[in-house]
């Protein structure tokens, strides 16, 4: 977590996502949505402010900020 924000981006571990919708509903920028499998997906990476709230509220560790690879 020492990484500065610029180097971070949202990662999604689709296997672990159970599609509860919490991250989507409470993303302050509303940049997340469901994909056709009912799992979370990033709709608008540009506007993500990397606040990390999705990560903090995901009960399943399925979405998180990590280094750009």
């Amino acid at each position, binding site marked *: *977590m020492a990484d500065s924000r610029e180097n971070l981006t949202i990662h999604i571990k689709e296997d672990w996502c*159970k599609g509860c*919708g919490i991250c989507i509903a*409470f993303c302050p920028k509303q940049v997340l949505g469901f994909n056709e499998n009912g799992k979370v997906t990033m709709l608008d990476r540009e506007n993500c402010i990397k606040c990390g709230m999705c990560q*903090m509220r995901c*009960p*399943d560790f399925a979405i998180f900020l990590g280094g750009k690879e």
Partner: protein
Amino acid sequence: MNHPLVENYFRMDKLPHIWCPGCGHGIIMASIARAIEKLGLDKDKVCVVSGIGCSSRAPGYMDFNTLHTTHGRALAFATGVKLANPELEVIVISGDGDLSAIGGNHLIHAARRNIGLTTICFNNNIYGMTGGQYSPTTPTHEKGTTAPYGNIDKPFDITQLAIGAGATYAAKTTVYHVNQMDKFIEAAIKHKGFSLVEAISICPTYYGRKNKKGSVVDMMTFLKDSFVDHKVAEKLPADKKEGKFLMGEFINKSEPEYTELYDGIIESLKK
């Protein structure tokens, strides 16, 4: 890449966990790990103890010394661990049923002794594991499989109960208020003496369904809208307080810790 917190503090091969979609327990479990990370605790010196319940399955996923005990008895086991080796940071994870129904006695006694255990209550207001029976924190009138006509029990306020028993740190928060949760759990772990964080969780599968609480998001929204910090609430006009639940740090005071007092006896006998 992997979730860095998960890689560092969890047993990757045990994940994903068994909890239902939208179960709030995962949120609290992550918050505990973040607090541990923040405090930079040595993983080898952390011991996580739980009883039985959905919530009590958490230690199995967490990469510490972990102890999944019998229903309701986590604090009693943890008391033994802590007194035997006060160097260990002992964190107890316990459901509302585990902690306040069958385990209520151990809660009040651990609080009374002010022994240095940090208790995190995963309070989803129901017995999740056994399929939705009402618990000591199910609100009056709500339903459970054993309260088909609505619960007539008055619920515990677990935080107040712990304070009545002598707890020196007690705070309440919810799975919506994750930043606050991180802060409280961190403070609780740092606290010398017995500390409790009551984390209001959600059980969409049983509590939500049985009580028509809507979707997972609806349940989270309810937490968002109805919990208010007690310090904030103090300043609110009466009409704004109606129907609100109070959260926040309710007590945080310093008193001698049990294992230190015991070590004092050992020292005094050496003379």
